[in-house]
């Protein structure tokens, strides 16, 4: 058991897990900042938002944004979404390629 725990494989696995955890933690902190800046930190009901992307949107980004709510429009790097649940809002804010969120009146 000791040999397994002290092996290179275990060390590398631990290192990867740690890196992923740190990455997730940093994304969460960045997500907090984006939500606070948009005044959405304490959203408890579905909201309408504009998602500003940090990159030119591709199919990958569109799939994830569309999964968060109902897409009602897009212009350049901005996508308008309706009916975004608090959980989906948090997931979206945690993405590194989401630059900012803005609340809109539905």
């Amino acid at each position, binding site marked *: 058991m000791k040999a397994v725990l002290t*092996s*290179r*494989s275990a060390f*590398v696995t631990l290192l990867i897990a740690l890196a992923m955890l740190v990455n997730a933690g940093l994304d969460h902190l960045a997500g907090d900042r984006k939500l606070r800046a948009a005044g959405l930190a304490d959203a408890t009901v579905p909201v309408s938002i504009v998602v500003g992307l940090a*990159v030119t949107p*591709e*199919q*990958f*980004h569109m*799939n994830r944004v569309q999964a968060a709510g109902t897409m009602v429009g897009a212009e350049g790097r901005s996508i308008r979404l309706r009916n975004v649940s608090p959980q989906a809002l948090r997931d979206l804010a945690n*993405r*590194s*390629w989401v630059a900012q969120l803005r609340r809109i009146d539905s």
Partner: protein
Amino acid sequence: MAGGVLTKTGPARPARRLAWPTAADAVLGFAALLALWQGASWLAKLPTVLFPSPLDVASAMIDLFQTGILYEYVKLSLTHYLAGLAAGAGIGLALGLVIASNRRVSEMLMPLVNFSYAIVEVAWIPLLILWWGFGPKLIVVAVAYVVASPLVHNIVTGVRTIPPVYGRAVRALGGGEWVVLREVTLPAIVPALFNGLRIGAGFGFRALIFAEMIAQAEGVGFLIFNSAASQQTPRTIAGMIVMGVLWLFLDRVYLRPLERATVQRWGLSTEAGAK
């Protein structure tokens, strides 16, 4: 003990090679390939879509990283692969033990296993799409299918090479079939199990690429296929490189040490042979 001097006997150990020259050789091989590739792309002067240079591919790789696509796709592909590997290993182990436990069962099932071994996973994918639809389930099933086959073969062979006298000895001492399985069969098949797992893991990785290409809208396999379809050749090659690096990583960090700790320890292969 003549003269009170103890002398070391036994087979001479092979001289242990330092790790760094091996790593340096590997890096040198890759560097030579990159230099040749870059030189060829300068000389050929073909459009990027036909023959991208290593610099184009590096740029595509950076772009994939910055857009968050690479990290997400690698995570997804590895999740599918590990789930398939675990499922295939479990099924292969159970099926192998069942087949090896009884000659009649073995005669009934081994031809079926051999039959399915010959049908590559790509041939199953259209059927799997019908049964499971597009998505992660299909990929996990495809990977599990190819991982299980070599495991079954290896386990059956492993069980058959156990001298029957060991089982008889345990039974003579009052042990039941469960004790024979736990104390004799399972420890004895460990080298065969890990050898089969390494072979199956390699096949499974190829199955992952195939399945993601055909049936999934996400993952590194999909990235390779989708980029080629949209003529983003540098991205296709970047995806291929990521797949290669992932496999090298899995093999070097997990599979090879696992095999070294079992197969080579039992003396069934040498380090040189395992490379």
